[in-house]
């Protein structure tokens, strides 16, 4: 079992690229002090090499650190009934959303600090093969919980399916460049049910966290998902983290049946297992010894 467990996280491949750009040598250093409304976005490219191929499906995460998504003021700053498509909440968001409730007397949709601070860097991955950049297909659907996507988050209902009309009377969150109904071109991934948005809205437990960004599926059985070799990561750098000493990362990882790479469980199980084994041996020894004494003590009686 322990071996299986070890394999569980042992065969998980992972790659982590910090692209915050605090070091002057980093290609993204130029973007360090971007603000929300810089147009066109500051872009930078980071090249990296995969030593080993990623055989199975690859999951692409973005990671932030020193970002307190679990701050109380932040966690409660949302209106779930608005996100659930409730029309009255759409136009009259909950007080919890303050100070991101209204802007210029118009209700914000989606309101609140969480939505307002949605991660908006764009990450693109290219395989560099003899100086040709082959874009790698990043799937942006299937990254959120099914129940969130299909039950908890709903677009407002009304006549027709035109989201622009449905969000009439609301305004975009202050920090967003585009309103919520323009998050994606596909209608089933637009508005409140945009999966990037849904993923962001599930607040992280700790100040250093990662969130699923894209999926890279294995195309066929003959080729690994990501071959070993050179790659480049194109970043549209919009999200400022330098002001609060934060870091940004891009993480590529495969997943075993146990989930992502997580050394803790393996180490813990091995430690506890060996302690138990050791104690068991010691106790068995003691038991054996005393068991002997027990019988010998019985004889005089």
């Amino acid at each position, binding site marked *: 079992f322990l071996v299986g467990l070890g394999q569980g996280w042992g065969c998980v491949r992972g790659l982590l690229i910090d692209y915050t750009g605090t070091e002057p040598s980093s290609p993204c250093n130029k973007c360090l002090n971007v603000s929300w409304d810089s147009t066109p976005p500051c872009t930078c490219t980071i090249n990296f090499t995969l030593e080993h191929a990623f055989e199975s499906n690859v999951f692409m995460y973005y990671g932030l650190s020193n970002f307190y998504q679990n701050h109380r003021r932040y966690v409660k700053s949302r209106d779930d009934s608005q996100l659930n498509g409730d029309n009255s909440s759409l136009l009259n968001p909950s007080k919890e959303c303050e100070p991101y409730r209204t802007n210029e007397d118009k209700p914000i949709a989606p309101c609140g600090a969480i939505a307002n601070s949605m991660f908006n860097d764009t990450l693109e991955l290219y395989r560099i093969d003899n100086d040709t950049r082959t874009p790698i297909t990043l799937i942006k659907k299937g990254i959120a919980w099914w129940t969130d996507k299909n039950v908890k988050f709903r677009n407002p209902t009304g006549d027709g399916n035109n989201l622009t009309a449905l969000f009439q009377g609301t305004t975009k969150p202050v920090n967003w460049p585009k309103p919520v109904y323009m998050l994606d071109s596909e209608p089933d991934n637009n508005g409140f049910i945009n999966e990037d948005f849904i993923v962001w809205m599930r607040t992280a437990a700790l100040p250093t966290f990662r969130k*699923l960004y894209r999926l890279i599926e294995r195309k066929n059985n003959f080729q690994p998902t990501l071959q070993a070799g050179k790659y480049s990561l194109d970043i549209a750098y919009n999200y400022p983290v330098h002001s609060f000493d934060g870091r940004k990362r891009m993480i590529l990882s495969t997943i075993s049946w146990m989930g992502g790479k997580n050394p803790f469980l393996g180490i813990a199980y091995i430690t506890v297992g060996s302690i138990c084994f050791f104690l068991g041996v010691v106790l068995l020894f003691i038991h054996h010894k005393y068991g002997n004494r027990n019988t010998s003590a019985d004889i005089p009686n």
Partner: protein
Amino acid sequence: MPEQSCSPCGSAASLALSQCPLSPQYTLWNFLPKNLFEQFRRIANFYFLIIFLVQVIVDTPTSPVTSGLPLFFVITVTAIKQGYEDWLRHRADNEVNKSNVFVVENAKQVRKESEKIKVGDIVEVKADETFPCDLIFLASSSTDGTCYVTTASLDGESNFKTHYAVRDTTVLCTDEAIDTLTATIECEQPQPDLYKFVGRIIIYGSNQEPVARSLGPENLLLKGATLKNTKKIYGVAVYTGMETKMALNYQGKSQKRSAVEKSINAFLIVYLCILLGKATVCTTLKYVWQSNPFNDEPWYNEKTKKERDTFKVLRMFTDFLSFMVLFNFIIPVSMYVTVEMQKFLGSFFISWDKEMYDEEIQEGALVNTSDLNEELGQVEYVFTDKTGTLTENSMEFIECCIDGHKYKDCMAEVDGFSQPDGPLKYYGKAEKSREELFLRALCLCHTVQIKEADQVDGLVAHPERKYTYISSSPDEIALVKGAEKYGFTFLGLENNFMKIRNQKNETEMYQLLHVLNFDPVRRRMSVIVRTSTGKLLLFCKGADSSIFPRVQQEEIQQTKVHVDRNAMDGYRTLCVAFKELTEKEYDRIDRQLNEAKMALQDREEKMAKVFDDTEADMHLIGATAVEDRLQEQLAETIEALHAAGMKVWVLTGDKMETAKSTCYACRLFQTSTELLELTARTVGEGDRKEDRLHELLLEYHKKLIQDLPKTRAGLKRSWTLSQEYGLIIDGSTLSLILNPSQDCGSSNYKSIFLQICLKCTAVLCCRMAPLQKAQIVRMVKNTKGSPITLSIGDGANDVSMILEAHVGIGIKGKEGRQASRNSDYAVPKFKHLRKLLLAHGHLYYVRIAHLVQYFFYKNLCFILPQFLYQFFCGFSQQPLYDAAYLTMYNICFTSLPILAYSLLEQHISIDTLTSDPQLYMKVSDNAMLQWRPFLYWTFLGAFEGLVFFFGVYFLFQNSSLEDNGKVFGNWTFGTIVFTVLVFTVTLKLALDTRFWTWMNHFVIWGSLAFYVFFSFFWGGVIWPFLKQQRMYFVFAHMLTSVSTWLAIILLIFISLFPEILLIVLKNIKEKNHQAGPFDLPVLVSYKRIENGYVKAEDAVTNLAERYPLRIP
């Protein structure tokens, strides 16, 4: 209304009072406000109310519901309990108060509800009805103006008592006649003593002078008593409602608090400090952390305008309050209600105990208060009454002596050779006339009544006889039966004539003129009778000490020898004396007696004086010896108590010799015990007695305190070597010690005496007045370390000590019910004390101690992760758990298993506990609620809290735990911690449970199942009333992740690992222990052999010595 003016002095207010003897506190209307007010007066409830209000007012991390709901739950449960108890009272009341009685108004009978009776109403009561209030007896259907009453429900005495109507009103025995009566009644203030009443009735006749008559207890019919053998009576109400003697006696129920509660409060303070500490630490760190501006207000998380505008000090204060609210669950809101429920339900186990059920009286143990269950496991001193408690109080006539000649029944001598009416075996013979006089005296000098056999309930019935004797004192029955054995049979009392069948089968008649009733001060009683020949005789019987000074001195010597020897044998002795009265003397006595009876003031003293004068210059005829059999299994019980480390003190009103022999018989004193006497005999009489006492005290003190260490230092310590001491003290010496007449030098008697007492294994206090018994108990109770005391007794004279001790136990004996009514627990027999203390007390203590520790523990490891989480969320008071979990944790998920545990747990089986008294010492001195076990539990809780939090923290280093790469958020984090928490604390309890019943299984696994079910349900629906759908499918998603499963199992295992390890080690140790030499040669005393190795043979002999054959 006729001209019936009635002015009970000082009780005018009683007219307005309604009749509610058991005083329900609430009505339907005031129940809610009054009950709430009462409940919030409790400091804990008030604290939670404050927390609740803070949550309502201040913007706090958790909604007011989280603390409001548990508080509401607690308040509701308590209110239901109190309401139920009150309803019971109401129901009991209604039975009494709404019952219909007939009141005579305007010569007609009017039906009234009994609660509407006013002072001054004339009430008619028929046979076998209960008196609705305290009545002055005016007239009865029998012409002589008497009625028979049984007060079984008041004091348990089932004999018929004769009450007398006021002499001038006896003729008014119809509705019309009674209506013509005009009278004023004056009576004393209501007082609870059932046997005391002083009053005066002034009757205004139509044409003559008003007549004043005195009223005494014999004229008063008490509420609660039942009319017997009399068709109907008329009486005028004098005390109603709360002023009846019955109601006054029901008041003053003991408000004893147990030591466990004090420990709880101490722990609470510790936890309150932890809470305050946590809140302070968090607030401070928050502002340190926030001093960095990008921590205080990063761009993604701006403050509202209001937050910016509030003053910093105010903000800090609200932050502090918020942290308090966040962590307030550390003080277990539901602990009080669980403790209360545990006590309430737990007390049923005592009353249900079949082993404590007594076939003879058809009753089991009775629990009057459930607050003291665990105190039974902490007893250090047992104070016991002798008569009726150690002995059975079922008297048997053994022998008598007449003029120094011993008469003993031959049946007792010839074994198995039964001759029912065989001749007496004479040891020398007294004159025939003296013999007959003695037997007549026995037949006449008593207050025994005859009861027809078909009405017999529970008392000794002879199949061949058609009647049985009943009396308030079992001695008298024994004496009458004794006389019967010698040929003189008491046939009963008819119209003031006592009928006796003598040896020649002739019936003799004696007119009963006066009965000078028994009282414990005089310790004697007398009757004055007129024989058929017209001779006036006074017969007196009483304790030797009270008779001897009143008879001719030359007669004493012969009898005294017998009396002393009988007392040595443990018999109760009574001396019988008589005197002949001349008509003139009688007239004087008669007049004096009536005068004294009429007196309104100081009647007691006047009566006592008349009695004293009358019972003088008598002639001693002889003495009787009555055996009071020891209670069954008495010696075993006492030994068990000793072995359990308790010290048994006997406090009795009896004579020293009798008491001493009982103590030997019940093995309280061993043959090896060295007795230290502080009695009238050793101290002596006269002026020098204080000096002598001083010397004795010092001598004993030296012997015990200074010499004892030397013996202890001896190499081989064994019980045969170390001397045991027993102390005997009598009432007069005790009062000398406690209330020294000189103020100089003698004030430290008390402390010396106390030191001596505490060194003795057994103390016998004889000749004690009831108040002295209480004094002794109080003295021991207030010594250093305040040991837990227990008093056990059966009579009214034990009530004071029962009330004084920490735990009062009443024996449902033959001396009435006063003791058991005032006690905290009542048991049928003394032997039941063994199980009550060793098994029930021990178990209750262990249970409640475990309950308390567990409660603090489970809330510590509940809140600690929440505290740690603050370090990772910027001290923002973000709760780790969902509000529903915060609320339900103590109410639903973890409350029932511990309740079931605390009701059912038997960590050691009851049989083992009763058979091995030494186990009792393991829990003595509040051992399980000392700081060490408390710290152990606290560290355990802290350890587990750390494991929960950091385990999940490390797990969340990579929060994509699902096999599809999806990510968990903060609510999943909390839910994992919470799941581990619920499982760990429940399984911890399962590990602690040694005694599994289906109930334990049901609540433990049921709670866990309920938790899982609830979590699914709570996360499965979008709740319209919730502002945020935080938990939506969080639990279900959590369970789809294999890593989470593994982590949960691992963390539960790690948390329980120390516990499991401890159990394994203990098992090994026990095995090792068993392999060792014989461990338990339990001795008669509680001291143990400490030098270890005893061979098996020795152990067997020790065991044999431990349970020697009882000397009957």
